[in-house]
C-alpha cells in the first residue's frame, strides 16, 4: 500500500492562469486583513468595501479572461478547473458580489447595519454601548467573506479529498464567525454561531472518516484514482468503499442542509445577520452542491448503484421534511431556512439522474435559487419594527398595503420559490425534474412525484405569506420597510430580473450550463 515517494523533489506544475481567480480572491482577503490592521478606524468601512468589491470584480475578470480558455487539471491533480468548476466559480463570485453589497447596507447609519460594532463585547455590556456610541464597525466581515469565498472557489474545483477537506474548512470557519456577529439579538446570533460550529465540526469528522475509508479502499485521495480503483476492482478492501462513499457524501450533505443533517439550518439562518444568511443560503449551497456533483460524478460514479438509494432516501426525506416543517414556521427567516432545505431536496433529485442534463439542471437551479434567495433576504433585512428586524410573520400582516412595491417583489420571489410558471423557480424545477424522469429510472420518477407533492405543500406556505401581506388588515403598528441604499437596491433588482428572465427566456443560461456540464478527468 505504499505510495511511490519521489526520490527527488519535483515542483508540481501550476497552471497560474487557471487558478488566477482564486489567487486574486485570497490576495484581496489578505490585503483586507492588513487594511484592518493599519488603516485608521474611520476609513476602514469605505476602504474594505472598495477593496472587496474590486477584488471580486477582478476575480471575475480573471476568470473569464484567463481561466475559461485554460481549462486544466492542475496543482498535482488536486484542482480541476473544468466546465462545472468554472460555471460554479463564476456563479459564486456573482453571489459574493451581491452578498457583499447586501452586507454593506448601512440604512443611513455609520457602519454596516447588520453587524455588531464590537464582536468581542458581551451583549448588553457597557463596552458594547460605548462601541456603538463611538460608531465602531466590524469591518472584518469583508475579509472574512472573501476568505469564505476563497474556500468555496476551491471547493467546487477540488479534485482530491484532502484539498476538498481543506476547502471545506476554509469556507466554513469564516462563516461560523460571521454567523455570530449580528448587531441585534446578539445572544441568538452567538448561539447560532456555536451550534453551527459544533455541528459543522461533527460533520467534518464524518467527511474525514469517509475520506480515510476511501483512502484505505483505493490507496489514494485523488478522485480519479478512486474511480479507477472502483472500475478495476483492484482493491482488497471492498468493504470500505460503500461506508466511505456515504460518509463523505454525508459530510457534504450537511452543508446543503439535507435531512437528517439539516437541524443547524433553521437556527443558524435565524440567528445569523440577515445578509450573511442570504450569502450562506446562496453561496454555501452552490459550493457544496458543486463538491457533491464532483464526488458523485467523478469519484463515485461507477459505484453509484450501491449508494444511490441511500442518497435518494435522503433526498426524499429532505423534500418532505423541508416542505412540511415550513408549514408551521412563524419566523420568516426560519421559514426561508426550511424552504432552502426543501430546495436542497429538489436539487438532489436532479443530481441523482446521472446525466449531463442533470448536471446542467443542478447548476441552473443553483443560479436561479441563489439570486432569488439573496434578494429575498435583502428584503427581510429591510422590514423593521422599532429599529430591529421584524421577522415574525405576524409583523408582515398588511405589508402589501403599506409598501406595495417591497411586498410585491417579495411576493414575486415567493412565487419563484413555489415554482410558478414563468418564474425562474419553475424552469429550474423543470430542469432538475426532467432529467430525473428521463434517465433516473423508477427512483427518479418516484422522487419527482414526491418533489411535486412537496412543492405543492411549500406553495401553500408561500401563498400564505402573500395572503398575509395583501389580504390581511394591517394592525396598527410601526412596522416599516426602510429605504434601502443603492447596494441593496442592486441586489434586489438583480434578483428580480433574474427571476423573471430565467423564467421566460432561460435558454441562454441553460445552454451555458449544458456546455459546461462535462467534468475534466
Amino acid at each position, binding site marked *: 500500500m505504499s505510495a511511490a515517494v519521489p526520490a527527488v*523533489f519535483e*515542483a508540481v506544475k501550476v497552471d497560474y492562469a487557471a487558478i488566477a481567480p482564486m489567487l486574486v480572491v485570497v490576495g484581496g482577503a489578505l490585503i483586507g*486583513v*492588513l487594511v484592518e490592521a493599519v488603516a485608521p478606524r474611520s476609513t476602514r468601512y469605505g476602504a474594505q468595501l472598495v477593496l472587496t468589491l474590486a477584488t471580486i470584480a477582478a476575480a471575475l475578470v480573471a476568470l473569464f479572461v484567463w481561466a475559461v480558455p485554460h481549462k486544466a487539471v492542475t496543482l498535482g491533480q488536486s484542482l480541476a478547473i473544468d466546465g462545472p468548476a468554472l460555471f460554479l466559480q463564476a456563479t459564486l463570485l456573482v453571489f459574493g458580489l451581491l452578498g457583499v453589497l447586501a452586507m454593506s447596507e448601512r440604512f443611513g447609519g455609520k457602519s454596516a447595519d447588520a453587524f455588531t460594532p464590537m464582536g*468581542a463585547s458581551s451583549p448588553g455590556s457597557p463596552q458594547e454601548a460605548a462601541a456603538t456610541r463611538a460608531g465602531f464597525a466590524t469591518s472584518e466581515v469583508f475579509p472574512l467573506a472573501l476568505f469564505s469565498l476563497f474556500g468555496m472557489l476551491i471547493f467546487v474545483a477540488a479534485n482530491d479529498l484532502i484539498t476538498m477537506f481543506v476547502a471545506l474548512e476554509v469556507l466554513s470557519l469564516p462563516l461560523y464567525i460571521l454567523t455570530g456577529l449580528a448587531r441585534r439579538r446578539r445572544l441568538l446570533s452567538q448561539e447560532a454561531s456555536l451550534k453551527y460550529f459544533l455541528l459543522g465540526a461533527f460533520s467534518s469528522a464524518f467527511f474525514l472518516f469517509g475520506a480515510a475509508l476511501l483512502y484505505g479502499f483505493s490507496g489514494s485521495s485523488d478522485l480519479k484514482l478512486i474511480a479507477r480503483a472502483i472500475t478495476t476492482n483492484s482493491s482488497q478492501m471492498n468493504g470500505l468503499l460503500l461506508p466511505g462513499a456515504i460518509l463523505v457524501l454525508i459530510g457534504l450533505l450537511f452543508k446543503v442542509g439535507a435531512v437528517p443533517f439539516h437541524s443547524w439550518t433553521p437556527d443558524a439562518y435565524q440567528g445569523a445577520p440577515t445578509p450573511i444568511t442570504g450569502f450562506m443560503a446562496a453561496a454555501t449551497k452552490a459550493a457544496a452542491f458543486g463538491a457533491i456533483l464532483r464526488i458523485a460524478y467523478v469519484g463515485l460514479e461507477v459505484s453509484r448503484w450501491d449508494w444511490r438509494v441511500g442518497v435518494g432516501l435522503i433526498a426524499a426525506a429532505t423534500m418532505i421534511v423541508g416542505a412540511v416543517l415550513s408549514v408551521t414556521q412563524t419566523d420568516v427567516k426560519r421559514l426561508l431556512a426550511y424552504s432552502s432545505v426543501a430546495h436542497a431536496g429538489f436539487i438532489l433529485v436532479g443530481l441523482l439522474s446521472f446525466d449531463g442534463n442533470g448536471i446542467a439542471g443542478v447548476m441552473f437551479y443553483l443560479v436561479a435559487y441563489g439570486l432569488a434567495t439573496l434578494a429575498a433576504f435583502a428584503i427581510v433585512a429591510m422590514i423593521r419594527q422599532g429599529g430591529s428586524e421584524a421577522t415574525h410573520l405576524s409583523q408582515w400582516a398588511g405589508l402589501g398595503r403599506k409598501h406595495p412595491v417591497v411586498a410585491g417583489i417579495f411576493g414575486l420571489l415567493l412565487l419563484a420559490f413555489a415554482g410558478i410558471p414563468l418564474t425562474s423557480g419553475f424552469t429550474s424545477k423543470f430542469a432538475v425534474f426532467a432529467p430525473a424522469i428521463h434517465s433516473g429510472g423508477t427512483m427518479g420518477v418516484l422522487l419527482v412525484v414526491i418533489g411535486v407533492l412537496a412543492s405543492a405543500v411549500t406553495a401553500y406556505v408561500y401563498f400564505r405569506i402573500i395572503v398575509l401581506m395583501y389580504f390581511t388588515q394591517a394592525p396598527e403598528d410601526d412596522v416599516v420597510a426602510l429605504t434601502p441604499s443603492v447596494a441593496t437596491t442592486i441586489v434586489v433588482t438583480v434578483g428580480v430580473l433574474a427571476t423573471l428572465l430565467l423564467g421566460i427566456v432561460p435558454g441562454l443560461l441553460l445552454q451555458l450550463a449544458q456546455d459546461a456540464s462535462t467534468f475534466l478527468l
Partner: protein
Amino acid sequence: MSNPYVPLFILLALGFGFAALSVGTSLVVGPKRYNRAKAEAYECGIQPSPRAEGGGRVPIKYFLTAMLFIIFDIESIFLFPFAVAFDQLGLFALVEMVLFIITVFVAYAYVWKRGGLEWD
C-alpha cells in the same frame, strides 16, 4: 527483525513503563505533606485560573495565546521539513515558503496592531 512494528511497540511499552514507574515510585516513596497550593491545578507556576463550575471565568487572553501559539506552531511544522531539505527543493519551494510566511505574517500583523499582544 521481520516486522518493523516490533521496535515501535517496544518503545511504546518503555514509554508507558517509565511513566508508570516514576508516578508509582513517587507515590510509594515520596513524603506526603499536604498544603493548599498542592491541591490546586498546576499551571506553570502562575496563579491557577478559577474553576469553571461555580461561575468562574477563564480569561479570554488564554484563548488568544493559544491561537497565537497555533499560528507559530504550524509555521514551524512547515518550516522544519523545508529547512531540512532546502538544498534539494530549489527556488520554487523557497518562493512558496515565503508566500506561506507572508500569510502567517499578515495574521500576526493584524493581531499585533489590534492590540492582541498586550496582556492588560
